[in-house]
């Protein structure tokens, strides 16, 4: 089936938040902290502006607690006495004219009496920099399996390495934005978001309103990648406060510069490995330390850290594993959810480390992976027994074969020996991604979904899971139509409006198809039973029964419901971090060919093969598109996307100097799927959206290392960094 809303998007008819007609509204704007830490000494309003013409909101205008409700209640809606990071919101302004409100925002001076800021998450904080607990550690986590110290002491070889990954900006092409207005006594907030119920909860909490007086509606969302998971709550609150104070509709849309400077990014990370090995490369012990920069508030860092450490050991069997994780408080703009959620960072380190091990031992990186890849019946670091029937070595072999890995290796030897300025190399990464919330998370969400029968015999799916480009509308339509034997046109997907749709959980964690899709199927079954049919009834029989119901119960549509049920046999202990971390893992092997120009030190990906096992592929075009988009985002993170920091804030907050790949920077991404239906996923599917961001960075950097004989340990490998590495290599 073709993407449902494709034509609306292709013709420019799709209406995003900034495209919606809105009468008599004010433009909102945020005034922010200029300093990373300190007490707010005063707020000075410029003398050349008639402030009576502006709506001005500060923390005293917040009706409820001054908190954006999330994991911890630590982040204010608007700073009151002190600030903890540059760009922290302090004041809100609104005016009819966008130009006027922009210049007014520049005319407000927030004077901060500065205090010592903690700006390097890798350094032990000085006493004056401590702002969280006694050591600035936001979260500590640990996984233990077997006896690492003993195994390391006995291992014939121990290989150590330290790896670093930089922050990454989402660059969803539609910047963040919200509109807010009052409709009777009800506050309506509409905008670009992944999680309408997160926004609802944050609004209720800080505005002191129950759910009957707040309504949140998602507008078509121009990309999210995690950047619109937790952050939209802030903008929603800001727009709402201005609307409540002014009594007028307010539109608050970030321009690209503000969006890049003030919103979350991927957590920077430092990962240390100490690995004990047998001479043939078998893993005997993995001792891993993962440290991430959380920034100035807790936000989602504890859960990002959790996913990072669970994925840190890679898709390999090892009896002795110890993984410790720390999320550090710093006075940086808070980091947040980004596709992959910690796993790309820890798997960059892990897969780069595999190649470092191979080189140290003098074994083939392919063989090293072959002897260690998990086989059915073996366990992951948390002790989860893998028994899904997937042949992970075969997935890798398929990728190697499609990429002509071995032949290319021979060709490159000749090429590199003779070419005056170019060097080529192949790189491999084998990796995995757990779908859905970690551990008991899915059960705690208590997701619910409804499918209603319409008077014309068709159905409407009511869910809080949203479309942001990844294909929710299309996949839910296909699942409902297939389940009931209907045509896609018979299925409507309801707008994600919290007054209409139940809370089916957030649109994150690769859970929408696999988990929420399963609720769509079961709610369809429930609807069919409700209208008096058995599970075998399909098509016209279903439509007739729904129509009949409507005739017999006017004004009361038949409703099928489903609530999340944990698949059998899944056990997780959050205290010991042991058990089944995820219902299912998706597995992948990515192989890439890179060419480095010795004159510019620029590395270019010239071929990319992505092979993955994601259960059953429901829509090949959408699935391929997810992989291709993720791979290119990963290539950007590996080679060019670099946040430059000044006082914990992004200094290069423009697309002019924060570069993302263009069509001409990347080759076609060749995608293949190995299918192995997952019995507990919708239509046999596993989660897919995040997997493809985990593998490209290590595969690309492994290829750069091979091409140049260098040993990069940090990304991005920009030309500047590669030049340095090559000069050091020459000097020895």
């Amino acid at each position: 089936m073709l993407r449902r809303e494709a034509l609306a998007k292709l013709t420019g008819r799709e209406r995003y938040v900034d495209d919606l007609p809105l009468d008599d509204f004010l433009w909102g704007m945020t005034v922010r902290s200029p300093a990373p830490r300190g007490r707010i000494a005063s707020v000075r309003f410029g003398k050349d502006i008639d402030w009576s013409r502006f709506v001005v909101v500060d923390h005293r205008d917040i009706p409820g607690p001054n908190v954006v409700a999330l994991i911890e209640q630590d982040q204010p809606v608007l700073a009151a006495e002190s600030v903890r990071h540059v760009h922290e919101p302090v004041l809100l302004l609104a005016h009819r004219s966008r130009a006027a409100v922009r210049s007014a925002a520049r005319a407000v001076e927030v004077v901060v009496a500065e205090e010592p800021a903690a700006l390097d998450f890798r350094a032990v904080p000085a006493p004056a920099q401590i702002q969280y607990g006694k050591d600035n550690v936001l979260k500590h986590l640990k996984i233990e399996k077997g006896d690492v110290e003993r195994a390391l002491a006995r291992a014939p070889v121990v290989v150590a390495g330290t790896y670093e990954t930089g922050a990454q900006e989402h660059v969803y092409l539609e910047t963040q934005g919200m509109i807010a207005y009052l409709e009777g006594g009800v506050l309506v907030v509409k905008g670009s978001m992944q999680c309408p119920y997160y926004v609802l909860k944050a609004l209720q909490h800080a505005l002191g309103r129950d759910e009957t007086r707040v309504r949140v509606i998602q507008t078509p969302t121009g990309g999210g990648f995690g950047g619109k998971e937790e952050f939209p709550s802030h903008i929603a609150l800001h727009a709402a406060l201005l609307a409540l104070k002014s009594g007028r509709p307010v539109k608050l849309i970030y321009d690209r510069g503000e969006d890049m400077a003030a919103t979350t990014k991927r957590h920077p990370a430092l990962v240390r490995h100490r690995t004990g090995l047998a001479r043939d490369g078998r893993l005997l012990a993995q001792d891993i330390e993962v440290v991430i920069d959380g920034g100035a508030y807790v936000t989602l860092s504890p859960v990002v850290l959790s996913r990072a450490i669970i994925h840190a050991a890679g898709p390999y069997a090892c009896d002795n594993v110890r993984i410790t994780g720390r999320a550090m408080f710093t006075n940086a703009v808070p980091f947040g959810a980004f596709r992959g959620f910690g796993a790309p960072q820890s798997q960059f380190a892990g897969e780069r480390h595999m190649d470092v091990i191979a080189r140290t031992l003098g074994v083939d990186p392919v063989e090293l992976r072959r002897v260690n890849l998990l086989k059915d019946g073996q366990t992951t670091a948390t002790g989860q027994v893998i028994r899904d029937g997937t042949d992970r070595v075969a997935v890798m072999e398929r990728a190697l074969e499609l990429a002509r890995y071995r032949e290319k290796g021979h060709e490159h030897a000749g090429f590199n020996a003779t070419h005056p300025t170019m060097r080529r190399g192949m790189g491999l990464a084998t990796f995995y991604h757990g779908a859905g919330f970690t551990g008991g998370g899915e059960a705690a969400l208590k997701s619910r979904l409804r499918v209603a029968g319409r008077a014309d015999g068709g159905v409407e799916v009511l869910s809080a899971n949203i479309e942001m480009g990844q294909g929710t509308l299309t996949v839910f339509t296909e699942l409902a139509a297939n389940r009931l034997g209907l045509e896609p046109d018979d299925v409507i997907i309801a707008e994600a409006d919290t007054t209409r749709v139940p809370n089916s959980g957030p649109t994150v964690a690769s859970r929408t198809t696999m988990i929420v899709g399963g609720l769509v199927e079961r709610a369809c079954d429930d609807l069919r039973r409700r209208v008096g049919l058995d599970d075998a009834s399909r098509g016209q029989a279903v439509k007739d029964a729904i129509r009949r119901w409507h005739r017999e119960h006017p004004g009361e549509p038949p409703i099928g419901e489903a609530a999340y049920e944990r698949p059998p046999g899944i056990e997780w202990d959050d205290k010991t971090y042991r058990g089944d971390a995820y219902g299912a893992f998706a597995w992948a092997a990515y192989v890439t060919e890179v060419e480095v120009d010795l004159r510019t030190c620029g590395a270019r990906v010239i071929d990319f093969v992505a092979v993955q096992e994601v259960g059953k592929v429901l829509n090949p075009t959408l699935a391929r598109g997810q992989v291709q988009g993720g791979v290119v985002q990963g290539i950007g993170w590996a080679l060019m996307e670099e946040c430059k920091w000044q006082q914990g804030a992004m200094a290069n907050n423009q697309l002019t100097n924060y570069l993302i790949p263009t069509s001409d920077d990347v080759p076609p991404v060749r995608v293949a799927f190995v299918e192995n239906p997952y019995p507990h996923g919708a239509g046999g599917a596993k989660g897919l959206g995040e997997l493809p961001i985990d593998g490209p960075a290590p595969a690309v950097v492994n290829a750069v290392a091979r091409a140049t004989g260098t040993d990069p340990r940090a990304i991005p490998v920009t030309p500047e960094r590669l030049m340095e590495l090559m000069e050091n290599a020459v000097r020895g």
Partner: protein
Amino acid sequence: MTTLTVAFTLNGKPVSLDVAPADRLLDTLRYQLGLTGTKEGCGEGECGACTVYLDGLPVDSCLVPTFQMTGRRVETIESLDARSLAAFERCGATQCGACTPGVVMTAWWIREHPDLLGSHTVRELMAGNLCRCTGYDGIIDAVTEAVGGEGRENRKR
């Protein structure tokens, strides 16, 4: 505030309106004329989401002052014929859609100037339109198919 009156041809029809000297064509189209198909991705000429045709040439409308439009010809995504977008649907050329109107505008321009393909690849010609979702393959496939002509498109369907 001083305003200037500009008169130009928009999507084949004459328009006349008052604008501020600093107004960008992008904002005039979106907020004054209600043509919201043209998107803003960066506001500084990097992303191509705001692509329109000015006297038949693709330009970034975020970089164009509206007052300079007097006597000129502007065409937006709203002027394109939606019937010929089948290849874009089929190839997965759009995901979130925020880059899409700009992508389609550039693609159509390439289609109308096939001689460009003698000296440039589709990947080079599309490099002024950033897309964060598709990884570009869906777009490149669609453009390649579209420049191949309608006949081929119909055969495939």
